[in-house]
């Protein structure tokens, strides 16, 4: 049997010859990629780190234009001395013009690409993606992951709902929902997260602010985190009549009812929150005062949520997945019929706020 082993060993060694390994300093690892559409041509921008001494890296950019989308990576290759690897892609940024024309060509190609992970982030830039990537490359000293970190930080502790390639594809393919992505804007020499870009199918159709993103986050069933400023009085100077609410735990509940000839969707939201900041005239925030503030908060939240719903209905988009909810409670759900009714659908928010605490001081 020793001969058998020898034989197998030789075969395995032979097999090793065929695959070529690629040391890290001999490839160009793209970490961020931007796509733009300008004057009938597509522009691709790749951000990659160059390794200098030790752990110091410097973000570098490659840009190319082409009349087609698929051609961009090969064209980038013709400008790069090292082979381009997309296995470490962390974020793909679409320029607004590009996003308006549809992003499926990119997302489908990503979905088919076995090298790209499901955690890849996507985003939309207000102006051009190229410009934004240039700014991040300039403002950060060594970090090529500025934008991905920005998104992740805000998802984990602030108002941004979770988004990534998997979720984008999930919402895109789902018959009962539409995708959305983080929306960036250039502010002076900085890049700022502005809110959420909304899509109908794969076309950008509008965006909501980061404040409204909080409401979306709660309505999507992401239970924790997010802050929201609410107006509770009319006392002149700015800032003096607002309270800052921090979501500790929230749960949405939907109910689908038949109301005569029409349908009605009731949305119940229960928020357990803490009040982070409140104006001094509200002191002490307890008893009747607290109930009063709570009532006002609930009213304003309901009002804002309703405004958000109307906006979605006007745009004929369903980023919150109402369609998917209705599908789950209807046998043989009819997608076309539901979305025909959708713009005039009676969607009513009902908000309950529980103020769990107001911080460690009173």
């Amino acid at each position: 049997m020793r001969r058998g082993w020898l034989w197998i060993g030789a075969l395995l060694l032979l097999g090793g010859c065929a695959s070529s390994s690629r040391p890290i300093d001999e490839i160009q690892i793209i970490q961020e990629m931007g796509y733009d559409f300008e004057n009938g041509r597509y522009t691709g921008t790749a951000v990659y780190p160059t390794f200098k001494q030790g752990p110091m890296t410097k973000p570098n950019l490659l840009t190319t234009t082409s009349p087609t989308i698929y051609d961009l990576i090969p064209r980038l290759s013709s400008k790069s001395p090292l082979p381009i690897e997309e296995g470490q892609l962390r974020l793909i940024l679409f320029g607004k013009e590009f996003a308006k024309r549809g992003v499926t060509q990119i997302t489908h190609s990503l979905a088919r690409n076995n090298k790209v992970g499901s955690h890849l982030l996507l985003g939309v830039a207000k102006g051009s993606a190229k410009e934004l990537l240039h700014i991040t490359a300039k403002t950060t000293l060594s970090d090529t992951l500025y934008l991905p970190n920005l998104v992740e930080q805000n998802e984990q502790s602030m108002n941004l709902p979770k988004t990534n390639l998997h979720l984008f594809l999930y919402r895109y393919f789902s018959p009962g929902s539409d995708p959305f992505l983080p929306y960036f804007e250039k502010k002076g020499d900085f890049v700022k997260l502005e809110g959420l870009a909304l899509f109908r199918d794969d076309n950008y159709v509008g965006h909501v602010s980061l404040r409204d993103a909080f409401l979306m986050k709660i309505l999507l069933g992401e239970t924790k985190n997010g802050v929201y400023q609410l107006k509770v009085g009319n006392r002149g100077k700015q800032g003096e009549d607002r309270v800052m609410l921090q979501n500790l735990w929230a749960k949405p509940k939907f109910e689908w009812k038949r109301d005569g000839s029409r349908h009605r969707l009731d949305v119940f939201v229960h928020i357990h929150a803490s009040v982070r900041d409140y104006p001094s005239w509200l002191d002490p925030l307890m008893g009747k005062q607290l109930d009063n503030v709570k009532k006002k908060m609930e009213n304003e939240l309901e009002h804002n949520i309703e405004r958000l719903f109307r906006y979605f209905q006007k745009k004929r988009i369903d980023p919150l997945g109402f369609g998917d909810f209705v599908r789950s409670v209807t046998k043989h759900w009819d997608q076309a019929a539901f979305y025909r009714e959708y713009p005039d659908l009676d969607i009513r928010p009902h908000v309950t706020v529980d103020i769990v605490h107001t911080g460690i001081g009173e």
Partner: protein
Amino acid sequence: MKQPIPDRFLISPFFVFFVVHAIQIGVGALSFQRPLMKAVGQDAWMVVLLAGLAAHLFIWLMYRLLSRAPFGGDIVSLHQHYLGRWFGGLLSVGVMCYYLLAALTVLQSYIEIIKVWVFPLMGTWQFSLIFLALTYYAVLGGFRVVAGLCVWGVVIPLATIFPMLFFPLEYAQYRNLLPVFDHSFGQLVSASKEMTLQYLGFEMLLMYYPFVKNAPSSQKWAHAANGFTTFIYLVIILISIVFYNQEQIQHLTWPTLTLAKIPEVPFIERMEYIVISIYVLVVFPIITLSVWAATRVVKQLFAVQQRRSLPVLLVILFIGTLLLQEKADIERIGQWTAKLGLYLVAVYVPLLCISVWVVEKVKKTLQQKP
């Protein structure tokens, strides 16, 4: 006709659990969700249960049949005893071809996965050669070695791949499971055909039955194995239903591997490559046992030693992998295997069972008459 097989070549009944289970779960577990959810959407998990129950029935039938085989023999001796030398022999060759086809399906599907995911530039023949050389080595070791492979082929993937399946629950949308029973019972039954290839594997019992010590007592382990297979498929399908939506899954060739893109570990970026590597241990026992069963048929039929026929069969497999490299071909042989296997366990074995029962009845009455 033949001597009973010596004790030292036998496995204890308990190991039937591993052998049956290892052969049932194969490359199909990576991709079965797609056709299933296309047919019945969120009710796919019921089909998994339904098909599992059907498999129990067929295993039971198979044990009824094999317990009547002369000298505790296998399907070849059954054929010879009840259907005569020529007709029986012809059917035995058919069974052998089926075993080879099963080995080819699994080997080819796995090579395709490696080529698509890991080494796109490598040729089929390299992998095929390595696999078949390993198969040669393992099959020469005899049935006990093959059964030992099956044990590891169950234990290691269960400890490594199975827990990974639960990471995607982070993104679970449990409302995808609703509404329950959105499809008619007829639809469910017709969709359960899609599960054939996934549950097939216990038909190897037709050959290794005489190698099990006190074989009839192993029936409970075969049923347990099938139950466990059902459980694993159920877990995979439930996770897939809540993780993907029905449209999205139609765009993925191997939904289970895409599930493995979700776990994030600091020292390794992408778990699906680990899953594919460990999957060798799932695939390899299937190939070896199928090839072993084929050589066993040859030995019983033509009295050719297994070590003589083995290289011939492996060369046939090797040529098969070279000829059928395109995706459409691979899918087609998969469908053939599923169809043939279904006829074997669901039509042929019951028919044989009935005819054997009738023959025995007639014999008895004839003996009683004079």
